[in-house]
């Protein structure tokens, strides 16, 4: 059986988690603790990056699973002002093996993410580079 075609979504959003960096880190850990088993079960891979003000995330997997996961994330009050940078068929997984790579905290506000409408490609590259660094993601 051929696997269903892959789809990838990249978005940025504004964080609504207030408080200290430690609080933010704890909340991210909680998000990842929920996300990872869930994503693994749904065949979703990806990476999540956060700054003090926002998130950037890539989700890849079968379209239906990506849609369902994305929809769940949309309902999350911990962020808002979601802007989809790209949503398109993906040839191959860029985060293979990572149910949700923790691309980590980028100090301050990353210029790429605070732009009015960031371009998808550089954000994806950034996610990949940081995830690879932080999680020793295999180089494809």
């Amino acid at each position, binding site marked *: 059986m051929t696997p269903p075609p892959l789809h990838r979504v990249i978005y940025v959003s504004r964080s609504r988690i207030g408080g200290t960096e430690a609080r933010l880190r704890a909340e991210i850990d909680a998000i990842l*603790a929920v996300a990872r088993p869930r994503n693994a079960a749904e065949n979703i891979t990806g990476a999540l990056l956060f700054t003090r003000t926002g998130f950037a995330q890539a989700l890849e997997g079968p379209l239906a699973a990506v*849609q369902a996961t*994305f*929809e769940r994330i949309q309902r999350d009050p911990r962020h808002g002002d979601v802007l*989809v940078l790209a949503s398109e068929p993906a040839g191959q997984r860029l985060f293979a093996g990572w149910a949700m790579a923790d691309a980590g905290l980028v100090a301050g506000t990353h210029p790429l993410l605070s732009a009015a409408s960031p371009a998808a490609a550089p954000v994806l590259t950034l996610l990949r580079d940081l995830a690879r660094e932080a999680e020793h993601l295999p180089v494809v």
Partner: protein
Amino acid sequence: MTPGTALSLARPVRDRAARVPAFANGAAGEAPGDSEDEAAGLLAALGGAAVLLGADLGVDLLTEAAARLLGVAAHPTGAGEKLKDLLDRSHLGPAARQALGSLARLDGKGSACLRSGAGAKILARRVALPHRRTALLLTPDRPPPEAPLGQHADPLTGLADRAGFIAAVTARLGQTPAEGGGAFGVLVLDLDRFHVVNDTLGPAIGDQVLIAVAARLRAALRAGDLPARLNGDEFAVLIHAGTGVAELEALARRLMDTLGRPYLPDGQPVSLSLSVGIARAPEDGTAADTLLRRAAIALHAAKAAGRARLAAFTPEMQARSETRRQMETDLRRAFALRQFELHYQPQVELPDNRLFGFEALLRWRHPARGFIPPDQFVPVAEEVGLIAPIGAWVLAAACAEATRWPAPLTVAVNVSGLQFEQGDLLGAVASALDRTGLAPERLEIEITESALLVNPEATLGILHQLRERGVRIAMDDFGTGYSSLTRLQSFPFDRIKIDRSFVSGRRGLAEGRAIVRAIAGLGASLGMRTIAEGVETEEQLASVRAEGCTEVQGYLFGRPAAVCDLPAVIAGFGRRAAQVTEIPV
């Protein structure tokens, strides 16, 4: 489950504890198993989800409903399992497990809202029982089955339909506060520009979005609130509790936030915003249709103030809405009684200030209110579907008038974007030309950029057909709206009309000049003529001329004139042409 049933669940347990005091201290009177079974049977019969805990937080009883909610296999009796172990094998997340654990250890009454792994919310209440025993009563945070809508369900989204909503509001209005009635709120939500989604991505995608909107709406509401789909992209919610204006506004804002986030139908990102109107019972009405109408009036006000807004109904809105309705009645009467007139403003070609035509401008002479400017009544006419017949009349009257002028003087007629959608514009133009015999080249249709925004393909198709007949096409008010170069290139316009605000210097003299220069340059390179509007002084004339405009229009060359004055105006230009003087640049 209502709080009432929760208490009645606790009672048999207390009865049992009272009847079997020995159970707690180990000295059995009645066989504990019997009474366990009895309580379990009662709870199961009531369909209640409960966990009964001993003083040591050991699980005495887990009802089947509770096992289902927690996602664990039910076990008939306590079997000595500790609450902690039960929670560990449940599908609750760590936070929820911790919350339920702390709730159990609490003294007295308490409650907590948990999220189960399946995503559903569970409300947990702690009831203290005698002998330091505890009942944890669990309820899904919304009534398990949707309120039975029967034939009142919207087939696409499964929400209540308009009739179901009206019925629910009516029923609610009939309840006394003791029955859970009293004050409540009605929200009407409308997806802004949803038709664009349908037009550009197709109705199948549009339906997917509507289904997703309904699902988010349902998930965002509390138990007791009733969501409905009234029609198309219009939704409504009956808000059960928290019905102060500030609370309703906060809720509306929350809905605007979640429902306004992106959707991914078929993997394509779709962004929407929504507007919300709010009405409250009993302040704003004591009949369902009044409440719904007033929420809709508030919605209308929110939309009029710009999209992605909310507004709560006020009596002033009602007054404004009545004025508008009056305007609508007056408009219909005006149309029937021919209270509309066309005035004509000269259009002049540079450099020799030669009259080449007139722009037809619609005037409404109201018997009581005098002249009403088009910007006051055209939006109402558009809204109530009168713009197509009025537009057809304007075309016919303007063409008829133009046949009385010496050829090749032209007449320019403004056409609303809605005429491309609502009316048979091609038919109206054809019939005006055929009936009057005006040469098509002498008719110019002016459209605004926004007309090209809504349904560009269809609009461009109509423009091309007009052009094939020989009619000229002008782009009106250029520079004020979206001013996209691509739109200028999308059609070979005969003429670009430069908005008066750039000519008058209202937007800054230097900036205005620079824009006039840019548009004139653009026109020249695209082979389009450029006409500057609102030229009132010799200085302005000299300026737009220097910047390369090929034509002008404005008070300097004449105000809009009534039909009876036109022969004199035309004659005046003839005289002026005879004694043309070069105006220094």
